[in-house]
């Protein structure tokens, strides 16, 4: 196994020789060659990945052919952060399918100035309508501060993302779904990277009853005061029945389209997107992310992005060296300090 010393943690850290998952990752074990159990388990699926991606591209083509132009105003709503992946997803859906898209940006009060500029530029260049949803700062401050101080989500959720990211993304997912239902939009698109969510979930109709139960579980798990203030950002109980037949398809195309970070950045350059210099190594839009990572690292002893990046290394869409650079680099103290001060957690 590869070993690091003095990076990330103050002791020697062994990581998988293939995918970069560390020995501190829950449930991990290594074979004699230093290969982790996740690499071994994924090997058969990876062998069939090319064929599977092609099948999913055809499936998306068919799905879009069936819904394009059928809704009153928009064919798709995209959760649009202004980051690299959601910007590329927006461009892909415009260029390949010429969809009528509503981009919804959730302003969590930590959008970097460079990302805000990218949102303006890209939506203008692609002629896409964009709405920004910005909850009041005290509400988000209390939510993020709470997630920074304690694990307000179940342990399995926190294997794939930090508590702060989970809090934010839960609101984003709910808001785009709510808007899709209210505006009869048949597709909800996300810019999840190929490592974030598996291809099996890349095209699927949202389920009314499962969404209902998921949302109930999420809100019930939050500290009392928080849940009551956040209720309005989630689906009202009546929606599950009223809109039962209107639940959209969720799609995350980057799970099955070619994904090469350098090519994506070059492609986005054509619509004016610029790589931000003010964010951490795992985000191209959020000034809270470094602090979220730091909190997670301290509590769990593994990086909240390591599952995603390890998947991408394993899939061959990112080099191992690049993955190591993204994960095993200390968080920028200035960015961590900025978010901590904003949240009043000095």
């Amino acid at each position, binding site marked *: 196994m590869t070993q690091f010393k003095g990076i990330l943690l103050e002791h020697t850290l062994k990581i998988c020789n293939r995918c970069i998952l560390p020995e501190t990752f829950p449930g991990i074990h290594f074979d004699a060659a230093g290969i982790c159990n996740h690499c071994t388990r994924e090997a058969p699926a990876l062998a069939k990945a090319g064929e599977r991606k092609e099948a999913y591209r055809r499936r998306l083509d068919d799905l879009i052919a069936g819904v394009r132009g059928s809704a009153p105003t928009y064919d798709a709503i995209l959760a649009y952060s202004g980051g690299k992946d959601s910007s590329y997803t927006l461009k892909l859906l415009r260029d390949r399918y010429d969809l009528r898209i509503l981009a919804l940006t959730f302003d969590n009060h930590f959008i970097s100035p460079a990302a805000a500029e990218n949102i303006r530029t890209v939506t203008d260049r692609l002629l896409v309508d964009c709405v920004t949803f910005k909850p009041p700062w005290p509400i988000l401050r209390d939510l993020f501060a709470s997630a920074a101080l304690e694990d307000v989500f179940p342990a399995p959720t926190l294997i794939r993302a930090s508590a702060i990211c989970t809090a934010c993304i839960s609101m984003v997912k709910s808001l785009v779904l709510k808007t899709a239902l209210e505006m009869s939009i048949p597709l909800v698109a996300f810019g999840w990277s190929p490592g974030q969510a*598996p291809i099996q979930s890349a095209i699927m109709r949202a389920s009314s009853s*499962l969404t209902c139960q998921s949302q109930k579980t999420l809100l019930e798990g939050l500290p009392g005061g928080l849940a009551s203030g956040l209720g309005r950002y989630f689906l009202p109980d009546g929606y599950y029945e009223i809109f039962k037949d209107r639940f959209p398809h969720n799609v995350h195309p980057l799970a099955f389209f070619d994904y090469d970070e350098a090519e994506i950045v070059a492609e986005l350059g054509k619509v004016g997107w610029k790589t931000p210099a003010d964010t951490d190594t795992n985000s191209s839009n959020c000034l809270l992310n470094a602090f979220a990572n730091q909190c997670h690292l301290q509590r769990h002893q593994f990086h909240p992005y390591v599952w995603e990046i390890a998947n991408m290394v394993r899939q061959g869409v990112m080099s191992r060296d690049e993955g190591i650079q993204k994960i095993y680099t200390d968080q920028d103290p200035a960015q961590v300090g900025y978010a901590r001060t904003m949240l009043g957690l000095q």
Partner: protein
Amino acid sequence: MRETIIRDVRHFIIENFLFGDSGNGLKETDSLLEKGIIDSTGVLELVSHLEETYGFRVEDEELIPENLDSIANVTGYILRKLPRESFGSLHA
């Protein structure tokens, strides 16, 4: 038959959502959503596994907690979906 399916479903959940944790505390009737083991996206991964492993299609209207929200519910759902003649092959 039922035991074989339970073992498969439990194994899939442990490997994919508990990341190899033994899942010792996970009872057959525990709600996977309420325990935070899977979210609505995770359910779709489970659905894909069922379709690939058992060779049937999960229809949109079957995406309900009563079919998918616990090891026992998933097992019961699989047993209802599988044709009788396939029961013998699952023992193999």
